[in-house]
């Protein structure tokens, strides 16, 4: 089942590649149609997924190359389930949003589908070798998507994106090699199996170095301040679909990696590193938000807001509490939905006006009421208005981190206020007032296709905001298990949780 989930997009990519080259117009519809197959599979998984089970489900394991101890080892748990679902939802949307791509459409669809296969593979892999393969392989399609279909400075952005990430991956690779060698020394055979590697007996020094090796790779991917500089460039230059997938899913590889690998493999080092990680997360939250406020470019504003929002996810991870983990996991999904939607909206207005400068707009609410409404709704979700999904995630992160790292949590809370400032101020400048610029007066509102793109995202924002149980139920057991793992392997004790957390974690929904 999980294998199919990875292979179907890959096969779909091959199918699209083999389409006759004189029927260019076929590529996008075929790719779009085929991308519903993984969506269906993932939907089945989501509802078949047994809640309350901590371990990996639907596992599949096949030996890849015995002497090296590598295997095709897949499984899904509460931490990865949401991300898989997010990937399969965003891919059809990203494809459908790309009708303006006329140059080399076929290649674009192929790269997008390959990206999907790689992303899903990364989230499902339980073998570190396999994980690295996918983790690194997703760079190539994204590199081409930015580099070929991006705007003016696309080559610079694509290169920066690739080199930054590859630089991080180098440390990850060295650390994975080291882990397998340590396993070989302790148990007589190399292994890359996550579960087997968790039983390694590492000295504190070893685990700290390896934690750093893994950490740098994921921190660049997230990106954690001060390694974030590639992100605004990549986002601004990428085509809309590229931005959606980059922010929506790809960055989650970093936050996912921290949760899955850093905490599981090096618990003691993780506990020791909490002040550093939390500190960087909080700097990211505040810095990203402050920089977002002053951005003159709408897309750059959303990009910096990503830095800020992802800071919350990292903070939740560093909190080392149940609510923090839950918040991090659900915020992964939330951020993918809201930021993805924001990038889509920015892309739609860019297609009409060919500018992303905030000052070029004004009073758009009068000419494009639907667009304005959707933007405001998404902005509220992103800010964290209660009742919408952003609130659930950020609130859980904050109450989760308050007991363990109160100072950081307190500072981070200001990020929420700043988010309201930059998004609402941007809304005000773009949409309110009278449309005084002549170019803005004859803009057309969203068409049916564009509304269709936004509907699933908006619905999900609302559903996850009002009824987060649908996701939290599925994540709870896994995050608890992760916390247990950290507690058992170290002297760390989870602080007493505040009662507010029960509102979300327990049965009593709002």
């Amino acid at each position: 089942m999980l294998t199919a989930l990875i292979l179907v997009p890959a096969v779909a990519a091959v199918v699209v590649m083999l389409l006759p080259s004189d029927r260019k117009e076929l590529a996008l519809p075929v790719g779009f149609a085929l991308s519903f197959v993984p969506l269906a599979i993932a939907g089945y998984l989501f509802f078949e997924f047994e809640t309350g089970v901590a371990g990996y489900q639907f596992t599949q394991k096949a030996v890849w190359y015995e002497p090296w101890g590598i295997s095709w080892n897949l499984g899904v748990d509460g931490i990865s389930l949401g991300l898989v679902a997010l990937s399969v939802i965003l891919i059809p949307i990203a494809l459908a949003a790309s009708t303006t791509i006329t140059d080399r459409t076929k290649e674009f669809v192929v790269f997008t589908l390959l990206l999907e296969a790689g992303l899903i593979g990364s989230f499902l892999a339980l073998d570190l070798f396999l994980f690295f393969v996918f983790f690194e392989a997703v760079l190539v399609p994204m590199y081409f998507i930015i580099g070929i279909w991006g705007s003016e400075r696309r080559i610079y952005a694509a290169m920066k994106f690739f080199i930054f990430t590859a630089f991080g991956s180098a440390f990850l690779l060295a650390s994975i090699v080291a882990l397998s060698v340590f396993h070989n020394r302790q148990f007589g055979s190399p292994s890359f199996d996550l579960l087997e590697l968790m039983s390694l007996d590492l000295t504190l020094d070893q685990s700290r170095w390896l934690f750093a090796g893994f950490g740098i790779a994921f921190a660049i991917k997230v990106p954690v301040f001060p390694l974030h500089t590639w992100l605004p460039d990549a986002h601004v230059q990428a085509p809309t679909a590229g931005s959606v997938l980059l922010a929506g899913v790809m960055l989650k590889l970093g936050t996912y990696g921290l949760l899955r690998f850093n905490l599981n493999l090096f618990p003691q080092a993780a506990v020791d590193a909490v002040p550093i990680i939390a500190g960087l997360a909080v700097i990211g939250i505040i810095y990203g938000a402050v920089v977002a406020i002053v951005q003159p470019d709408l897309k750059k504003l959303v990009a910096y807001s990503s830095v800020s929002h992802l800071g919350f996810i990292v903070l939740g991870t560093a909190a080392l509490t149940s609510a923090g983990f839950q918040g991090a996991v659900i915020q992964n999904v939330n951020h993918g939905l809201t930021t993805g939607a924001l990038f889509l909206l920015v892309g739609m207005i860019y297609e009409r006006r060919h500018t992303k400068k905030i000052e070029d707009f004004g009073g758009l609410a009068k000419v494009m009421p639907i667009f304005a409404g959707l933007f405001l709704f998404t902005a509220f979700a992103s800010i964290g208005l209660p009742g919408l999904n952003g609130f659930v995630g950020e609130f859980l992160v904050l109450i989760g981190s308050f007991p363990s790292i109160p100072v950081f949590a307190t500072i981070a809370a200001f990020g929420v206020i700043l988010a309201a400032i930059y998004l609402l101020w941007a809304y005000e400048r773009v949409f309110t007032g009278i449309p005084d610029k002549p170019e803005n007066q004859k803009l057309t509102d969203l068409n049916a296709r564009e509304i269709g793109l936004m509907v699933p995202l908006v619905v999900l924002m609302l559903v996850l905001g009002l009824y987060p149980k649908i996701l939290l139920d599925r994540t709870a057991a896994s995050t608890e298990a992760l916390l247990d793992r950290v507690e058992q392997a170290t002297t760390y004790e989870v602080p007493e949780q505040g009662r507010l957390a029960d509102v979300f974690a327990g049965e009593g929904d709002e």
Partner: protein
Amino acid sequence: MTFAQVLTPPSVGWIAIAPEIVLGVGAALILLFDVQYKPKRTHLGLATAAIVATAFAFAIVQYDRVQTLSQATADQAADFVATAFPFDAMIVLDANAVFGRFAMLLVTGLGLAAGWRLFERLGARAAEGLALMLLSATGFMFMASSTHLMMVFLGLEVGSIALYVLAGITRERTESDEAAIKYFLLGSVASAVFIYGVALTYAGSGSMNLLEIQGVLARNIFTRPAVLLIGIALMVVGMGFKVSAAPFHSWAPDVYQGAPGGIVGYMAAAAKIGGFAALIRILFTAFPDFISTWGPLVAGIAALSMLLGSTVALVQDDIRRMLGYSGVAHAGFILTGVVAGGAGTGEVWFYLGVYTVQLVGAFGVVAAVTGAATSGAGIDAFRGLSKRAPFLAATFTVLLLGMAGLPLTSGFVAKFGVFTEAWQAGYEWLVIVAVLASVIAFFFYLRVIVAMYMEEPVDEAVAPPGISVRASLALASLITIVIGIVPGPLLSLAGEASPL
């Protein structure tokens, strides 16, 4: 002595050198036929391909023989020695030698197909070029299969001299002459250094047979260690020249740039296979106990090669020079596996096998784009190649990503293998240097991809490549991807390839 006895050939184990015989005799026949009958060039090419294929078939027979030998029982010991070490133990029939032949013959076949347009251009000299190619392959295969330093040297010279001539085979062009003379001068110095190392080793151990040397060194605590150590170092340096490891690499970019485009890929790949095969054989067979002595030396050369090769490649505007410097870096990566000693043989061979295939393929693309009989390949010629020649651009991308070591290509598995071995052997620092060098290397490989896919095309039509070129490039890319996804079979095969 009866008549029948005279006719019965002595049991000298011809099978151990059957592929070399096929290539050598084939080269001679091609020259003779060319003089006598003036056959069509296409026929010459097909004949050469057939010779290579025959040699390959013999190599497979040898592989089968080696498999049988490896299961020999104690009472078959005498038989084993006779079969495995024929010609007074000058030659060895083991998996290491056989794998060397596989790699060498594959590269020869690919190189022939990918560079075919050069031989067409050579006109009357096509037969000479083909014969030289076969002869150089013969020499380098001997380097992989001899256990005697004199034989290693002979193989080295046969192979190298043929390559010097090939570098200058388009002799009407001065760049080609320059490349040939440079290659010849520096290569000769390297050979001299190597043979001096052989002499000192002989002085230090009393033998030139690698197995005997090993025995002598194991039995005696020390026999003139300083002389011996200098001997080992000089042999490493000599081979370092051949595989273009830094700081003995300076010839490589110049020669790769100047030599005719159709043959460069083969030249680069063949010299690497021969050099590494001999290096593995010498270090692992004769001096396994000295690993703590030569290990750091090799590690130092490896680190320098990787860093220097990757950084200098960044600033090259000529694709061939860039591939030359990237070859320096790759020599370093392979040496990273060598420091692990005998345990890393499989990974080293795997790396060599997949890298040389990529190398031949990449130079095949360069030759198809900028000409098979010319020198140089400015990056400008590759701008917008994806629109002008999508097939060439796509295969080049696969091959470059393979060299860069991206996952799902054979290059990644290869890098992973040597890194693991090096870490296992305690060279953690070398692995860190290696991963950083691979990141630097991403820059220049991507630069070419950027030029091909993301920049506006230049108005220069690329002549559609011939069928042999297309086939060889498709094969090289296919190998790169398939081995990247299913590395198991080749890894196991290479894993058997440790020298006896």
